């Protein structure tokens, strides 16, 4: 396993974790472009652009792109979040150059009007699909309410209205501002021919013109409160809560197992848990559960008492179990080439220096009880902002 890096003169970063024993290579183009970079009137443009990238370039039609991706036997996809857009594919070693030629060409999309209007319909279908799925757009509403007018509160998908109003022109402007080579990285993991990767990148991306990219980091002022989204034909009640968390690495995963025993093992809730999300300048802890509506108030009070107890700290045994679990998960993920590619790319997105899975596992092993309990005190897991979704409209913060 060898970590390699290179930067083109125009600023494009190339990072690879080369593993000669791997069966294939996973490749990704990571762009620092997400919903937090959008003005409200172009809400959803990052995600729509991600779709449009697959609709062709000046030299390839949408159909050709799809044919070529399948001819390479690639397992390819893309994802857009609040802070990044990632295009990725995995192929057998003999297809590396062909894939890089295709992926890099896609980064200069044609954005043809006819494709734009057809794909707009697909995006609206996607928005509607999530509207029908629990928690029925609740996540977006909660983020909006928690962040207020802060760009991190904007929906990644956008709304039917904002997407409906988008034009190829506004997308082109957004593209020109974000898809500058200095704001992008070509990431690879697995059986990678790094020299060839750099050569190909020089040849294919060397002429991309750089521009200055900015991402203002406005201060977040979380808005606390409780709100309700009424869904009369939902069978279960869903509750989501946000509170501030560390903006950097999360070391505070203690809540999970207490929630398991009190809410899941007992059958009080269908699902429940807590997760952390880190952004530039802001971090979040999101706790959630869903359950039969008649149990929702009881569960909400239970969840909040568990979160409040976390403030008092965790026990040595709990920490030890959590560490074992995390370290095992890191080992399992370290064997998956695509997971390695995402890890390397994720570290680049966060401006972190590269760490191997063993180094990351070791960091977790070294976490002390005092450190965890200090984090638990610094970021109390409270019900800062709560959204209740479902047939009941009478839940209260308790």
């Amino acid at each position, binding site marked *: 396993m060898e970590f390699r890096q290179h930067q083109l003169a125009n600023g494009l970063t190339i990072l690879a974790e080369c593993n000669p024993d791997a069966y294939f290579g996973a490749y990704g183009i990571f762009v620092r472009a997400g919903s937090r970079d959008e003005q409200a009137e172009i809400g959803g443009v990052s995600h729509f652009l991600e779709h449009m990238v697959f609709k062709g370039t000046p030299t390839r039609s949408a159909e050709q792109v799809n044919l070529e991706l399948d*001819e390479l036997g690639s397992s390819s996809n893309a994802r857009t979040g609040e802070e990044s857009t990632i295009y990725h594919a995995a192929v057998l070693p003999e297809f590396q150059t062909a894939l890089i030629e295709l992926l890099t060409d896609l980064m200069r999309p044609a954005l043809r009007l006819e494709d734009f209007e057809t794909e707009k319909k697909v995006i609206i279908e996607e928005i509607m699909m999530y509207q029908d799925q629990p928690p029925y757009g609740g996540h977006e509403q909660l983020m909006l309410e928690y962040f207020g007018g802060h760009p991190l509160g904007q929906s990644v998908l956008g709304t039917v209205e904002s997407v409906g109003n988008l034009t190829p022109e506004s997308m082109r402007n957004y593209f020109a501002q974000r898809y500058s080579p200095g704001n992008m990285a070509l990431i690879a993991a697995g059986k990678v021919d790094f020299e060839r990767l750099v050569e190909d990148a020089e040849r294919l991306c060397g002429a991309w013109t750089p521009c200055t990219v900015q991402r203002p980091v406005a201060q977040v002022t979380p808005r606390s409160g409780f709100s309700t989204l009424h869904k009369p034909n939902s069978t279960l009640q869903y509750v989501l809560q946000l509170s501030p968390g560390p903006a950097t690495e999360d070391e505070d995963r203690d809540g999970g197992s207490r929630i398991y025993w009190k809410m899941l093992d007992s059958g009080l809730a269908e699902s429940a848990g807590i997760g952390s999300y880190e952004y530039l300048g802001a971090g979040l802890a999101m706790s959630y559960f869903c359950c039969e509506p008649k149990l929702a108030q009881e569960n909400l009070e239970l969840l909040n008492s568990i979160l409040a107890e976390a403030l008092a700290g965790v026990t040595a045994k709990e920490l030890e179990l959590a560490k074992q679990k995390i370290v095992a998960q890191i080992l399992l993920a370290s064997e998956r080439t695509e997971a390695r590619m995402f890890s390397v790319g994720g570290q680049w997105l966060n401006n972190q220096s590269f760490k191997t899975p063993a180094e990351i596992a070791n960091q977790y092993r070294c976490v002390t009880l005092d450190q965890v309990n200090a984090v638990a005190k610094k970021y109390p897991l409270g019900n800062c902002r709560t959204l209740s979704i479902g047939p009941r409209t009478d839940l209260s913060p308790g």
Partner: protein
Amino acid sequence: MTDRQAIFQHRFDNGLTLVAQSMPWLESAAFSFAIPAGCSREPARQRGLANFCCEMVFRGGGEYDNRGLVEKLESLGCDYFSSTSIYHSFFGGAMPATGLLEALGVYADVLRRPQLPEDQLEDGRMTCLQEIHSLEDDLSSRVMLELRRRFYGDPLGRHAEGVIEHVNQIALADIRSFYASCYQPRDAVIAVAGKLEWPRLLDRVTALFSDWTGRPVSDPPTVPPEHGVCHIPFSSHQTHIGIAWPCVPYNHPEYYLARGAVGVLSDGMSSRLFREVRDRRGLCYTVSANLHSLRTEGSVVCYCGTTTDNAQQSLDVLVEQFQLLSRGISEEELQRLKVQIRSGLIMQQESCRARVGNLAGDVLHLGHVRTLDEVSERINGLTTADINEWLQAHPPGPFDVVTLGEQPLELRDGIPTASAR
């Protein structure tokens, strides 16, 4: 691929099969126990019993109580799961390979010496009921489960979660009785993949399971399917469409011909359904078709989620594509599919979890494992002439359709529906 495949299989006198693949390049291992305690074994008035039993079995076994069991597995770094399907209940996990043999010992306690504790019966029941409620809110699953229920009839069309009224009535004695008759070694499979030494694994499993005994289980009576078109009225943004037609199952000699045909329909971004329904017309975000196999029956199942206004057109385009398929596939389509399948097979080898699922599935369906070389050979051996001849003899249809949404949909005149079967 050959040099990196080492597959071992042993059948014990009690009917239990152990199958394993050594993957020495990994540091992890995965395992799966398939116990012949699926929901097809439940009495007709106790739908949900198999899943409830699976839930209760995991609430303590041997020396471990509920909490001790979970803590033990977590201390081994085991990411574990359990689930129930038509024929089997599955218990499995993935973990650092160092703890594998110890984890198997924990599962011997769970599966052979469960406590089935009375004081946890109501917690277990609540957990099972919550799962049923959760399905109600998952509209695409609702459609596909209803489609399967109608297509296969009872018990093969069941889903494991069962029926609320039945789960409410299940007593601990019912669970104990189901456990006694179904949790036994005949037709059970233990699959293991990852970093392992076969002789040590075989010794360990012999010590833990070779003296397990049990009687063969008989299948409950069957109820015939309900074919045709069915609509579930529901106020939703999208209409969820499920379509099924009969096809050969996994253990059938013609399976790979069907796999080739359905692959052209649905594998990849250049597949016909993705291109015609989503890419060219923008009618949906999700569309797919897959082969589904039981022991002696199989089907092609297709799903599409689309807004109410687009729903009828989506159904029309889907059916049109199914019918066009019977006219044959092209050489280019087959070549693309072969590359995709070959890549997928090679990529699968880095994951012990993926392999363990295939090992168990192969033994359950075929009695032995198809090596990746064998699968690769069969895929490479496919020709457009063979697939097209097969498609002519077995054109898609007749169709069973289930829709959920604001408005019912119609199959155009002349489209064979399953009611005509």
